[in-house]
C-alpha cells in the first residue's frame, strides 16, 4: 500500500532525484552472519551475542519499525532486498541509498569480538546488498571503542568505494573528541572517508547529563542533546586542528538545535578561550567547515516562515542531506518531509545534490 501511495503522490509530475542517507538493514536471522564470522567467534556470537543494548522501556513498535515494513519472507524489517527495493528504492525513485546497519558492534564491552562482528557485518553488506543492488552504498561498521581495531577495518575496506563512510553511534563511552578515537579519524581522513555518527548506541553512560530518564520519548527526543555534547567535544579537543581533512556527518539527530549551539559555543569561547589555546578560530567555524547533517527526524517549526528562519540561522544549506530512516516508525517521506515553501532549488539540493557532492556519487 505504501508504494501505491508513493507512486500516486509522484504521478503526473517529474519527481526530483532522491538520495536516501539513512537506510537500516538487518540479517534475516541470527544465523545469517554466521558464515561471515571466523571460527573463534561463531560460538561466542551464538551463545552471547552483542550484550550491550538493554532498552529499559517498551518502545513504540517491534524493532521501532513501521508496521508495514515486515517482509513477506518472514525476517525482520530491512532484511529482504526485493521487499526493500519495492517498498523503498522503487516506490520513491531513490537513486542511491546509503546503508547504516545498527547491529551491535558498538558497545566496547569486548573489542576483539566486536571487531570480528564488524568485519562480518561489512562482508555481509557486500555479499547481500552491494553486489546485487547497484543503487546501494554502505557504511563501514567498526569497533569504534577500540581506535586501533577500527582503523584496521577501515584500512581493509577503504579500497571498495561502495563504502562511502565509517559508521559510529552517538552514545559512546567517552566524548568523541578524546584521543582514544583518534586512530579511527586518522584512518578515515587518510582514505577520504567521512565519519557518520548515528542516533543511538550504548556507551554505558546515562542517557542525559542528569541521569536516566523514564520513557522512550525522552530517549528518542533527547538524542539531540547527545549530538550537542559530541560536537562540543570534537571542537574543544582540537580534533579538526589535528585532522583538517576530517568530515563528520550527524545522522538522525535533526538539526534545528545546531544554530543556538553554535551561538553558545562562540559566546563561551570568547570568554573562556584561555583554557584552550590550541583552538585558533571560533568554534562555529570548525563546525561549519567539518559537519554535515541528515534531515530526519526533521524538526517542525510552527510556521513555514520559521522554517526559513531556521535555515537562515543555520546557513548550512549545502550541508543538509535527506534521509528516510527506513524502515523505522518515524520514516520521513521524500515528498512530505520538507515544508512546501522551501525553494525548489534548495529542495533539490537537500533531497539529492548535497549528498551526491558529499559522498561523491556520480
Amino acid at each position, binding site marked *: 500500500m505504501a508504494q501505491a501511495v508513493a507512486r500516486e503522490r509522484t504521478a503526473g509530475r517529474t519527481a526530483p532525484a532522491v538520495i536516501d542517507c539513512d537506510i537500516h538493514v538487518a540479517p534475516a536471522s541470527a544465523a545469517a552472519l554466521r558464515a561471515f564470522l571466523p571460527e573463534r567467534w561463531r560460538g561466542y556470537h551464538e551463545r552471547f551475542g552483542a550484550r550491550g543494548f538493554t532498552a529499559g*522501556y517498551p518502545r*513504540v513498535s517491534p524493532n521501532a519499525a513501521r508496521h508495514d515494513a515486515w517482509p513477506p519472507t518472514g525476517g525482520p524489517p530491512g532484511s529482504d532486498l526485493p521487499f526493500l527495493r519495492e517498498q523503498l528504492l522503487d516506490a520513491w525513485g531513490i537513486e542511491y541509498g546509503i546503508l547504516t546497519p545498527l547491529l551491535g558492534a558498538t558497545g566496547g564491552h569486548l573489542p576483539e569480538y566486536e571487531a570480528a562482528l564488524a568485519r562480518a557485518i561489512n562482508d555481509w553488506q557486500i555479499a547481500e546488498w552491494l553486489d546485487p543492488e547497484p543503487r546501494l552504498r554502505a557504511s563501514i561498521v567498526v569497533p569504534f571503542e577500540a581506535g586501533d581495531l577500527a582503523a584496521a577495518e577501515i584500512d581493509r575496506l577503504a579500497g571498495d568505494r561502495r563504502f562511502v563512510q565509517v559508521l559510529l553511534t*552517538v*552514545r*559512546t*563511552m*567517552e*566524548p568523541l*573528541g578524546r584521543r582514544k578515537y583518534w586512530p579511527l579519524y586518522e584512518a578515515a581522513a587518510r582514505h577520504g572517508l567521512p565519519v557518520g555518527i548515528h542516533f543511538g548506541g550504548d556507551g554505558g*553512560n*546515562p*542517557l*542525559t*547529563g*542528569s*541521569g*536516566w*530518564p*523514564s*520513557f*522512550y*520519548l*525522552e530517549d*528518542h*527526543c*533527547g538524542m*539531540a*542533546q*547527545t549530538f*550537542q*555534547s*559530541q560536537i*562540543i*567535544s570534537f571542537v*574543544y579537543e582540537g580534533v579538526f586542528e589535528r585532522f583538517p581533512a576530517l568530515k563528520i556527518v550527524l545522522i538522525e539527530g*535533526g538539526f*534545528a*538545535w545546531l544554530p*543556538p*549551539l553554535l*551561538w*553558545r*559555543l*562562540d*559566546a*563561551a*569561547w570568547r*570568554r*573562556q578561550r584561555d*583554557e*584552550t589555546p590550541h583552538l585558533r578560530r571560533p568554534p562555529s567555524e570548525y563546525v561549519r567547515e567539518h559537519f554535515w547533517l541528515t534531515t530526519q*527526524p526533521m*524538526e*517542525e*517549526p*510552527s510556521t513555514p516562515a520559521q522554517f526559513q*528562519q*531556521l535555515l*537562515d*540561522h543555520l546557513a548550512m544549506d549545502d550541508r543538509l542531506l535527506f534521509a528516510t530512516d527506513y524502515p523505522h516508525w518515524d520514516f520521513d517521506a521524500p515528498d512530505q518531509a520538507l515544508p512546501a515553501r522551501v525553494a525548489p532549488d534548495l529542495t533539490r539540493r537537500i533531497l539529492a545534490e548535497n549528498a551526491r557532492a558529499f559522498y561523491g556519487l556520480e
Partner: protein
Amino acid sequence: MERRGAPAVIDCDLHNVVPSVQALFPYLSDYWVDTIRETAFKGAPANFYPANMPTSARPDAAPPDGGPPGSDLATLRAQALDAWGAECGILNCAYAVESIHNPHAAEALARAVNDWQIAEWLDREPRLRASIVVPSHHPDLAAREIERVGGHPGFVQVFLPVRAPAPYGNRRYYPIYEAAVRHGLVVGLHAGGASKLPPTPAGWPSYYSEEWTGMAAIFQSQLLSLVSEGVFDQFPALRVALIEGGWTWLPALLWRFDKEWKGLRREIPWVRRPPSAYIREHVRLTLQPLDAPPDPAHLLQIIDQLGSDELLLFSTDYPHWHFDRPEEALPAGLPDDLRRKILHDNARAFYNLA
C-alpha cells in the same frame, strides 16, 4: 545606561557566595563546628565556578575585604542593585550541598546556608530575595528544609542544581515539589551541580569550557523529563525557572518535543496538551547568558519563535561575566512593551513579588 527615568528592573539571578565553611559556624550546631574543625572538612566545593575563569567573575567583582566575588553585600549592592537601579534582586546561592554524601552533613550545611542568607543578606537588604538551598539528592530532607524556612517572606524559590542524580521529572523529587507548591515557591533549576555523574550522555569531557557549554543540553533534558513524567499534571501550580542555562535553544526544543509527542503520546497519556503548552505556562528562563546569534535580527526572530512574551526574566548573573556594557545585557531592538516585561513584569508575576 541612563538610570533617570529608566524602567523598573528585577534581577532574577544574583549570586551570593559563602566565603568559607567557617562563615557558617554561627549557624551550625556545636557537633558540626567541632567536626569541621577536627577534620578540616572544607564543606561544599566551589564546584562549577573555577576562580579566574572569566565566566566565574567579572574583573571588578572582588570585594575589598579579600573574599571571593559575590561574598560581600556592600559590593553586590553597589555593583548589581544600585548600578541597575533594581527594585528587587533574587539571590541564587550555588553552595553545592548535593556534593556531600553524608546526608546529615548535607542537611546541616543547607540549614546553615539558609540561616546565613536570612541573617546576612535578607535581613540587611530589603531589595533582596533568596533561594532556599536544599540537599536535593535527598528529597525528603530537602522537603523538610523547605518546610522549615519556606514561610520566610524573603525566600521566593527553591534552588535545584540542573545536574542531578536523576532527571527532575523523576518521582523521587515529588516531596520537593509538594513542599514548594505548598509554600508558593518557584523551583529554580540552576546551571551546575555536583551530581558526580558525567555531565554529558557520552561521559566526562576534558575541558571546563565543554562542561560549561554543554550545560544547556542538560536544561533541555530536564524539560523533557518534567513534562514527560507529568510533573505539571501532578502539580498544576508548580512554577519552574531555568536559570543561567541560556534560552535561544528553546524554540528548536519545542518544535521537536511537540513533534515527538504527536508520535509517541500513547506512552505518556497523562500529557494531554502539546509539551510547548505546558512549558509556556509553567516555565520561565533567565536572560543571561544570552548566547545570541551574530545578527541581532536573528535574535528577535528567536524571541518571536518563543511564542510568548512572558517567558524571559531579566538577569545579570552577577558576578559572572557575560557582557561588558550594560546595554549588552538586553537584546537590541526590543519593542518597549516586551522590554518592560523582560526587565520587570514577567518576574513580578512569576515570583508573586509585591
